[in-house]
């Protein structure tokens, strides 16, 4: 669809010239890539264990305590000094840089939770004694995954609806416009809160609920592009040639509309992350216990004497949003036809 032609090359060149945008895209990409492997960065299980000449990988397989000479046939708790001693007597353990999973509670805190940053908990712990850094890493991953899914699905839905309305016009267009007007005048936040209190939302529920409203952002731009492009002479020529509507759309009209869509995407992504954080903050988001930036902010509000909670969540969120806005601006400038290289 978007093939590597001279126009695309030119745009890539323009994107690369925007150093801030390029660096932001690289940093964001790296962070996201690393967060995909969060289990290897922050976990309460060692990456690898060598015990009596055998190699164990506790992240992938659960082992019983008896395996390492313990007394109980339960999952080994590697943070337990007793188990750790058993293993280290006859082998070794390789730990991830952060020895906490997002749900791991540190029972050996020197002060009551939330406790201050220390060598063990680099950004301190939250009010249940869980490591803040681990929760931010997992929270970042879930936020970005959520944002990406929401952006992708809503752009697919929005682009298809906008394409239909713009390309066929007429009654379909009028009805579609009126529907969107009515639908977008619904008080989104209240409906989200009502729907979230009816069910206990999980990742996919929230995705579906937010999707109900987020797809409309794309319809306007795509519809306008299609309305304009369907009367281009080269589109008429393609129709006269006998291309089906689908072929005409894919080959000739959609590439034009993709410019507007792609420009829109980074901003939708940051909007989606903000929405999820807001819902989590209000307590209508992800189920309790899930790592989330919004939940961390809510904790910070409840524990003003523990500023590391608020500061950590704030900087994490600010970093994500700033990077995305820089990327978005670079994409927008790269696609701007008035800018000449």
């Amino acid at each position, binding site marked *: 669809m978007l*093939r590597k*032609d*001279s*126009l695309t090359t030119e745009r890539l060149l323009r994107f690369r010239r925007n150093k801030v945008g390029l660096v932001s895209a690289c940093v964001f990409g790296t962070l996201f890539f690393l967060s995909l492997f969060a289990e290897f960065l922050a976990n309460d299980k060692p990456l690898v264990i060598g015990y009596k000449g055998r190699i164990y990988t506790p992240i992938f397989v659960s082992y019983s305590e008896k395996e390492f000479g313990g007394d109980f046939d339960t999952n080994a708790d590697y943070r337990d000094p007793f188990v750790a001693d058993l293993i280290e007597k006859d082998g070794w353990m390789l730990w991830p840089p952060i020895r906490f999973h997002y749900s791991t509670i540190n029972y050996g805190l020197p002060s009551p939770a939330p406790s201050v940053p220390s060598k063990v908990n680099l950004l301190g712990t939250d009010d249940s004694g869980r490591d803040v850094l681990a929760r931010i890493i997992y929270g970042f991953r879930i936020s970005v995954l959520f944002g990406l899914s929401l952006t992708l699905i809503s752009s697919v839905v929005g682009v298809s609806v906008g394409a239909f309305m713009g390309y066929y016009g007429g009654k379909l267009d009028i009805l579609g416009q009126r529907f969107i007007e009515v639908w977008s005048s619904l008080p989104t936040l209240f409906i989200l809160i009502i729907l979230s209190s009816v069910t206990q939302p999980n990742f996919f529920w929230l995705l579906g609920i937010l999707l109900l409203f987020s797809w409309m952002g794309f319809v306007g731009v795509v519809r306008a592009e299609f309305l304009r492009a369907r009367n*281009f*002479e*080269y589109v*008429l*020529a*393609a*129709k*006269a*040639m*006998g*291309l*089906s*509507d689908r*072929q005409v759309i894919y*080959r*000739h009209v959609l*590439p034009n509309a993709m410019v507007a869509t792609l420009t829109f995407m980074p901003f939708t992504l940051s909007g989606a992350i903000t929405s999820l954080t807001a819902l989590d903050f209000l307590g209508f988001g992800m189920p309790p216990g899930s790592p989330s930036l919004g939940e961390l902010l809510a904790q910070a509000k409840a524990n003003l004497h523990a500023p590391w909670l608020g500061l950590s969540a704030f900087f994490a969120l600010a970093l994500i949003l700033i990077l995305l806005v820089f990327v978005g601006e670079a994409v927008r400038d790269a696609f701007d036809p008035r800018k000449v290289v």
Partner: protein
Amino acid sequence: MKAVDDVSFHIDRGETFGLVGESGCGKSTMGRTIIRLYNVTGGEIFLDGTNLTAMSEKNLLPFRKRMQMIFQDPYASLNPRMTVTDIVGEGILVHNIFKDRERQERIFELLDYVGLKREHANRYPHEFSGGQRQRIGIARALAVEPELIICDEPISALDVSIQAQIVNMLEDFQDEMKLTYLFIAHDLSMVKHISDRIGVMYLGMFAEVAESYELYAHPQHPYTRALLSAIPIPDPDLTRKNKRTILRGDVPSPIDPPDGCRFATRCPLVSDLCTKATPELIDKGAGHFVACHNV
């Protein structure tokens, strides 16, 4: 709004039918309707005895191959994101005429035909001049070996020197491939040069239809006379002797056309009858049709 209203005509195989008229009189609409880019709200279209008027897009496909169109604006009619190969080869692909290597061979052949070089095949439209772009447009139309080509002002956006090249090329192709043209233009001298028969349109209706030389030698409709008198003559003495008919006023809005004869508001020969009854297109002998009460 009726952009085109109550027009009937035929084009014989191998003939060039010229269509002239002011901007906005419905020439392009008519061309695009014939090729079924616009839906017909009334009347019928026949190609070689087959009624195309209400045919579904699927059934129309084989007929799409038989009629093609050349567009006015060589800058707007080529997709800026596609190479010449892709533009010209699109029809071949859709109608499955040739496969892979044969297809590329055929594209080269078409480029040779229209006077472009083979090394142009992988370039983008913006790398060409207006005349070259129009050649690409012609190659695209010829790719599916059509019988009827609708030329929608193919030369009006080009330099005069290039215009002649393109027209001559179109004429050569007509002889070689037995093509039929519907040639839409507002430049009367060029239409006279290329057409066998000419239809003069005013506000969506025919004013006069006649053989080319007959129309120029004996124009009957007052609108045709006014148009012909506007052709500049490259001889100052003759220009001074010839009296120009200058039309007053503007073309009325096609949204609310005048009753009776549509030309009545600007006609030098206007009479009472003209504002009451719409004149029929009447044969004045030898295939010369005129729609006027007063000639």
